[in-house]
């Protein structure tokens, strides 16, 4: 193991790691941010030029194409998802033993694996 100890005192070392670490984490994610904000559109533009010829400007191929995808739609989707996530909770399903009984005859033995095998 290679240690990066700068101090013999653990607390001071801790502060250094704290500051350094935060800077690096921010640095890394800022790098990603910048790439996807500026780098990627340029890359896609270059790719398009290579494959289809230079008939488009950067702005046109900039990924902000789906302007039709408006706030109203997003809201609608959000509602739908909200509903969907909510409805998953009908606690304590009072399934009758009858329904379970069908399942019951399916343990332990190989022959019986197949009962499940068919269902999935």
């Amino acid at each position, binding site marked *: 193991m290679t240690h990066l100890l700068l101090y013999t005192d653990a607390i001071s070392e801790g502060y250094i790691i704290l500051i350094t670490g935060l800077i690096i984490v921010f640095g890394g994610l800022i790098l990603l941010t910048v790439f996807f904000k500026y780098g990627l559109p340029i890359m896609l533009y270059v790719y398009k030029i290579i494959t289809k010829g230079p008939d488009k400007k950067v702005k046109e191929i900039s990924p902000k194409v789906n302007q039709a995808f408006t706030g109203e739609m997003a809201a609608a989707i959000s509602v739908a998802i909200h509903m969907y996530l909510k409805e998953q909770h009908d606690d304590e399903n009072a399934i009758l033993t009858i329904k379970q009984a069908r399942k019951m005859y399916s343990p332990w033995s190989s*022959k019986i694996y197949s009962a499940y095998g068919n269902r999935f």
Partner: protein
Amino acid sequence: MKKIILIFGVLSLLVFIRPVLGLNAKATHTTETTTLTVSDNTVGESFVSEAFNGIKQFYSFTGFANAQSGNLIMILVGIIFIYLGIKFDYEPLLLIPIGIGVIIGNIPFVVGNQTGIYEAGSVLNYLYFGVVKGIYPPLIFLGIGAMTDFSSLIANPKLMLLGAAAQIGVFATFLGALYLGFNLPEAGAIGIIGGADGPTAIFLSSKLANGINILPDGTTVKNLIGPIAIAAYSYMALVPVIQPPIMKLLTTKKERLIRMKPPRAVSQKEKMIFPVVALLLTTFISPSALPLLGMLFFGNLLKESGRTERLADTARTKLIDIVTILLGVTVGASTQADIFITKDSMMIFALGAISFVIATMGGLLFAKFMNLFLKGDDKLNPLIGAAGVSAVPDSARVVHAVGLKADPQNYLLMHAMAPNVAGVIGSAIAAGIILSFLG
């Protein structure tokens, strides 16, 4: 383009056919073959004779040269297992992998090429690790727990005693094995065949009769995992053949006609509490059974919690399938003739048959015994005692079939499931006890 490929191809082939053209000058033969390189004519000949030598040498590596009668017998056994599985539907998910495993394990090979299951470094040996270390059985139990509905047991807890009674088969076989000269740990492992539960048998034998443990007197226990596993699965597959005559022998026509009252409905809450409480009680009593019972009830909780259906589904489908495939083929392959065909194996098979008979009798007779204390429609149909041997769900189905023969309107399947699953719990507890005493 075409030309380039043509030239390239011809050049490549030139290298390959050099010897035929007699350009093989560098060769310095160290074999006895006298080489005649005088004319174009004889080059071919000499080369043929050398190649023939190579083939002769190679032949010594083939199965044809190394086959022993034991291998051929075991291959036949493997084919019979497959045949039984396909033709009669006897536990096909186990007999077919084991059968093909028996064949794979008995293909004759030269030792030292990392082919055999007992050779360190071979692929089969790595897969066999899960058997030797007892890892596969708890994973199978996880899936089984996620498959099993314990409702019938919760509804009628007293039927659990039938599962306990059938464990007589385990302990009696244990004693029989001692009489036949096996030492204590080996006898313990052999006894568990009477539990009629493949994974439990493999788990216990991998701990007690693994060819590694050393006894106080300095001897090493034998490796009996293969014979014990094969015996357990064989007799489980043969339950529809073994049990009916015993059941008819020990019950009267009148007893077989007894109709039992239907079990009560069981609430989801009870089903959720069952695995937790059963885990605590059984493993407090028999801590060495923890890997088996812990996983069994873990799987059952995944199934019954209502929140983890996804995990339960994986445990009872893909996970158990993968483990079943690996377990089956390696257990089968562990029957390599030179290790498997011994007097011990024969005795284990004989003891296994007896153990199934005793277990069945134990369950049946205990059901009749319980009837002495029960009245009216609480009385048990003693046939369901036979389901206490586990071999789930075959023995329960045998009970159902035998019951139907006596009274075509008497459906015993639901009732037989309770002792059936209790038998599994009982066998795991018994395995834990034996492990505590002898492990």
